């Protein structure tokens, strides 16, 4: 248990220090969303209509940004060798790394979403629903991304490969996340229907992600 706590603290520390990925993700998110109204123009009805989709897309891309260094950084400096020698099961180690990554890159997106939603003419109920869907959905993005990060760990410039592997897998989460955020305001389906499916997708990826990533990492070391 102490080893997992030590790993969580260390990964979060690295992420928030200079050169870490925490600030990069949230800044990318803010920049992309800020640019959209300039590109589309002052059509408030349109912005309100596509707002949730834009925020979700930006969150998806932002959560991919720092992901390729998640295992590659530890691989390059030899830390991964030692992590594999620990007494904690590799699946749990990976889940903890995923948690640390989400706390430092996913959670800031969730928190900054309502603020940036103002630029897209979202009103209060929409903001609330959007924040809730992002809160539930971004962990799934991170944990699915773990699989790609583990596959790309030994490759130089694995970032593009990571996106190619991970993005198709995130399509269901994008669909139901945006659907739930829209349903809260426009209807006609109730908010609960797509939101429950989103929750189910997240729970499934929390389980599958660490196991698949552990299998990929073990394969790298065979």
């Amino acid at each position, binding site marked *: 248990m*102490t*080893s997992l706590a*030590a*790993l969580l603290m*260390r990964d979060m520390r690295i992420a928030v220090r200079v050169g870490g990925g925490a600030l990069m993700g949230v800044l990318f998110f803010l920049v992309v969303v800020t640019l959209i109204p300039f590109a589309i123009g002052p059509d408030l009805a349109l912005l309100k209509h596509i707002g949730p989709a834009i925020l979700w897309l930006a969150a998806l891309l932002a959560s991919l940004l720092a992901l390729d260094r998640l295992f590659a950084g530890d691989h390059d*400096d*030899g830390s991964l*060798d*030692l992590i594999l*020698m620990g007494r904690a099961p590799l699946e749990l180690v990976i889940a903890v790394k995923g948690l640390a990554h989400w706390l430092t890159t996913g959670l800031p997106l969730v928190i900054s979403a309502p603020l940036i939603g103002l630029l897209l003419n979202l009103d209060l109920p929409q903001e609330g629903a959007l924040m809730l869907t992002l809160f539930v959905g971004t962990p799934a993005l991170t944990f699915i991304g773990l699989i790609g990060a583990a596959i790309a760990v030994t490759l130089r410039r694995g970032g593009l490969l990571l996106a190619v592997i991970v993005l198709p897998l995130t399509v269901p989460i994008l669909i139901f996340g945006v659907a739930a955020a829209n349903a809260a305001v426009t209807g006609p389906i109730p908010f609960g229907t797509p939101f429950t499916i989103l929750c189910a997708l997240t729970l499934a990826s929390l389980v599958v992600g660490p196991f698949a990533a552990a299998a990929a990492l073990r394969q790298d070391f065979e």
Partner: protein
Amino acid sequence: MRLTGIELACRRGERGVFADVSFAVASGEALTISGRNGAGKSSLLRMVIGLLHIAAGRLTLEGGDPDLSIAEQAHYLGHQDALKGSLSVAENLRFWAGFFGAQSADLQTPLETVGLGALAGLPAAYLSAGQRRRLSIARLIAAPRPIWLLDEPTSTLDAAAQEHLADLMRTHLTGGGLILAASHGSIGLDGAQQLRLDQPSPSPVVGEGRGGGRDEKSV
């Protein structure tokens, strides 16, 4: 505690690196592995901790904790120092001590032991190569484990630090530990067993029971 390798073979891709290598190390003993570049010294160490696939042969540990694998009872000091430049010296050590389940939270003693006590708050990015290596060595002291696997432990260390490392290794052996070290030169341990990984000629394919350099020392 006794670590035994029997007729081990290593294969990287299509190329056989070594074959038919046997050794036995017991508590309080050290084994130095030597050989030319590419002979498989590092590969043998990585094999012991399961980071490389064992192509043939067996590896057994008698007298250790039966619930733990060899890797879980071993420390590995590789070519890479496994340090994060953005974390301070103390934070790096605290992480590895915690990750390897060290009981005591005392970091100052291991840092003093390797002569980095005064630099505890400095980011590890500012350390020299020798200081980085010494910080890695502090890890072995902060979280005790019986098996030490050292890959070129003296590289980048100055003469005084090499002598100091030899003292630490002797203390470890006296306490019942065992050491496998890959090295070109002497690591300063008298009475260590020698294992030479030398092939007569670089053979592209290692056949059954031949081709590999077979050199082992009786215990």
